[in-house]
């Protein structure tokens, strides 16, 4: 469990996070939704210890984050940054094996787990490709394989799919859903309302927590199946939201015009 208590973070006199309180339960699925500049990426960076909060505390399993040894913390929390493309001509398998840094293990073991992670996502064919030759979508899949190899309790993902074509996009959602189903905690940060419709099938909607973040404040917390969900998201972005059901999944379509 990760608990965020009164976290405040500012830069250059501007408050980016304004005292955020949030609890991320073990094996939960959380979407942090908000407009550009809401402080979503900053929140993730605080959770990773990359940004130290000016005020407030972050506890992971009841222990303050800064007391965690880097290797232990990497076993609790892993991260997929928004711009994670690697431009070096190294083989995919090496990149994924290096995500095993936290395990003090032999190279053979690291390669074994790296290969297993690739195969688990049906990416075995990429093993020997140079990372620098991958397309944006392929790269994102490979990054997910490296998260799998790191094998942390929580996956923090920063806009994991918004720049991908539909094939790779759906691939990403599918991987996240399966990981969550197998007991992984998933935290997905996005401004993309369209993503909400593809995360989980209808029967799982009650278990997905959506956190609306704007100007560094949590403005709402609701499950995906909340009756007033469309209104809340609408007011978050100042647009109208039209819920549409297609094939057992609910989608939220933003419409021009202010929310009522």
């Amino acid at each position, binding site marked *: 469990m990760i608990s965020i208590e009164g976290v405040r973070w500012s830069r250059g006199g501007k408050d980016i996070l304004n005292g955020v309180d949030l609890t991320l339960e073990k094996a939960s699925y959380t979407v942090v939704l908000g407009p550009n500049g809401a402080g979503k990426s900053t929140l993730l*960076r605080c959770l*990773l*210890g*990359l940004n130290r909060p000016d005020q407030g505390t972050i506890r992971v399993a009841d222990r303050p984050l800064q007391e965690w040894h*880097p*290797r*232990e*913390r*990497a*076993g609790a*929390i*892993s*991260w997929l*940054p928004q711009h*994670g493309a*690697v*431009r*070096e*001509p*190294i*083989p995919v398998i*090496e*990149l994924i094996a*290096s*995500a095993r*840094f*936290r395990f003090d293990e032999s*190279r053979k073991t690291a390669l074994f787990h790296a290969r297993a992670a690739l195969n688990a996502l049906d990416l075995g064919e990429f093993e020997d490709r*140079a990372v*620098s030759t991958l397309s944006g979508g392929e790269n994102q899949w490979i990054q997910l394989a*490296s998260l799998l190899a*790191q094998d942390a309790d929580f996956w923090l993902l920063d806009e994991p799919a918004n720049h991908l074509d539909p094939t790779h996009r759906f691939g990403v959602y599918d991987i996240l859903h399966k990981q969550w189903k197998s007991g992984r905690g998933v935290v997905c940060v996005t401004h993309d309302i369209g993503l909400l419709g593809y995360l989980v099938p209808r029967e799982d909607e009650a278990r997905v927590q959506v956190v609306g973040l704007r100007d560094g404040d949590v403005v709402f917390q609701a499950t995906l199946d909340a009756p007033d969900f469309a209104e809340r998201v609408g007011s978050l972005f100042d647009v109208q939201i039209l819920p549409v059901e297609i094939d057992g999944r609910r989608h939220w379509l933003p419409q021009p015009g202010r929310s009522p």
Partner: protein
Amino acid sequence: MTLRAVLAMAICVAILCGAPFVGPPLEGEQGAFILWQLRVPRVVMGVLVGSTLGLTGAVYQTIFANPLATPSTVGTTAGAALGALFVLVFFPTVTFIGMPIVAVAAFGGALAVTGFISSIAASGRARINDVLLAGIAISLAASALTTGVQSQAGMGATFASVRWALGHLAQVGLQGAQILAPIVAITTIVLLTQIPALQAMVAGEDRAHAQGVNIRRVRTICLGVGALGVGACVAWCGPIAFVGLIVPHIVRLTLGAARRVLLPASMVFGGAFLVLCDTIGRVIVPSQDLPVGVVTAAIGAPLLVALIVKRPD
């Protein structure tokens, strides 16, 4: 890949074994003297210095996440040169715990400049290219000071320091190598232990942090130990340019960029490359000894320009 690595190793070994025999034919007692007292120590020095420069070059490129970052471009070499030259000109005979003070001063200069540059890099606000620019600015400032120091020296010291500043492997003999070898060994061993962390840093410093790498620790170790090794090499042989830049690039193009290959291979290639350049410098002008720094720069400068022009991002 394995075949290529074996082939590359064979070429390196051939260069090292062949180098002492290049040049005027060696005969009799005098020939044996030239071979064992002059040429072989020179090859040994070339291996020590070249491997250190090649390895630290590859490490700096990873730490600074920039293919152009090397001990020469971030200012380590210039700092070492300034420190070394200062004592060469003003205190040429002083020793420090048995070591010539020039080595200590070179290390001090290297550490000061490297520390300053990495504190800029660690401030988090500077983009990595700014760090390179700062390094280049400091290098220029250091070489201005170096010229100033030279201008204060007498004729003989000025000539010696100018020649030293070109970078050379000659006349340090086996004694020089004996003092340098342990420093190079420490540098090499410590840097090679950082391979897993450096490999993780290929995916980006923040990403490596999230994967459990203690970035500050890795950075401090690599830059500190790198300054030690480069400082020692500069103290003995002068600032030999471009080895730390070209060698990792050659390895990257031939054997790949995975750090467990890149680092050791840059070390081996670096040694062979410097010995090759020195051998060329020894024979290219008949009965003249061209400083090796001139040869590496003559090969390296155009290559650097080509790399900048070709840089993908």
